């Protein structure tokens, strides 16, 4: 199972800045292992962020997003103590959901 994300959500003024690190190999399907064998493609295809039941960001990713992806975005309308929830889904049908409290 995939490792948890590291999510930080910080309120400055009326804007929450969310910074996410995801543990994912983001294999392009075109890279070879040390024995010369192709490593199958395996990458995150969609990312969704919600706060208080409402979408705050959605993203479609291809294999060109770097390994162990990093994502930062900013939204308004949340207060300290609100929860930001992030979900990713990948090409292998795996998914992972984690959350962080706005601080």
């Amino acid at each position: 199972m995939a490792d948890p994300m590291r999510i930080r959500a910080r309120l400055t003024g009326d804007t929450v800045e969310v910074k996410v690190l995801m543990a994912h190999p983001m294999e392009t399907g075109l890279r070879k292992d040390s024995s010369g064998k192709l490593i199958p493609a395996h990458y995150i295809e969609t990312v969704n962020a919600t706060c208080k039941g409402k979408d705050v960001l959605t993203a479609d990713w291809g294999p060109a997003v770097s390994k162990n992806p990093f994502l930062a975005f900013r939204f308004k309308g949340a207060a300290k103590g609100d929860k930001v929830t992030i979900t990713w889904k990948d090409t292998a049908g795996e998914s992972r959901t984690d959350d962080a409290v706005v601080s």
Partner: protein
Amino acid sequence: MRAKTKQHMFWLAIVVGAASSFTASLVWAQSATSSDPVSQYRAMFGDDNPADLWVMRGKDLWQKPRGPKNVALAKTCDLGMGTGVIKGAYAHMPRYFADTNKVQDLETRLLTCMVRDQGLDKAAILKNRFGDGDRKSDLEALSAYVVGASKGVPISLPMSHPQEKRAYAMGKALFYYRAGTHDFSCASCHGQSGKRIRLQQLPDLATANPEAQKTYTTWPAYRVSQGEVRTMEWRLGSCFRQMRFPKLKYGSEVAIDLTMFLAKNAEGGKMAAPGLKR
């Protein structure tokens, strides 16, 4: 085709000039734009180091009971500061351990604890000593976590046991040992200051100096080019590969002696690992 590539590069170089004057007119909130493009690249990573993902995993591996003996390393493992103590441990390693009668670096010490205390299989651990994507290394994760607990602690080695002194002296000799098809030693690249290989600055690691501190205190590190956290054992092995030597064994005498030499030259430097490297 070569020539075409060159022409292309040249054309692009001209575009760079135009592009930079275009972007210069834009105002950026955090425009910490250094004139040096390499430091500009590094600055853009900020403090969002994917190594944090390894630290999180390493914390679990350290705190949770594991292995056939179902014990937690936090309850049994002595890294030189007392059982279960990780704060500052890395800043005082390599060091002599009486129970093994050996000078050990962090990684061989962790291995001792995992095998002896938890009853885990040494060969299985070593098989994944260097992770690759989904094939994860417990040693790298544990190293990231333990090292992170030394942040801000100055390097200071016990250097009191005869074996510790011998390791340092050997490390120094090994640092200057030239061999192989290319006549390289560690000193070929790291024996002086102010030089670079391609665009990478080469730190002087031959003497006690601020560059040696800065380098040593930022390992282990998340290697951007690998997408993995790499440790000192990996760093040394990879250097020797590029020096055209045979394969360095994990936890070998050469690895530990050289680490001792490098750590000693970094004394006084405050730990800032896991770092972030190219």
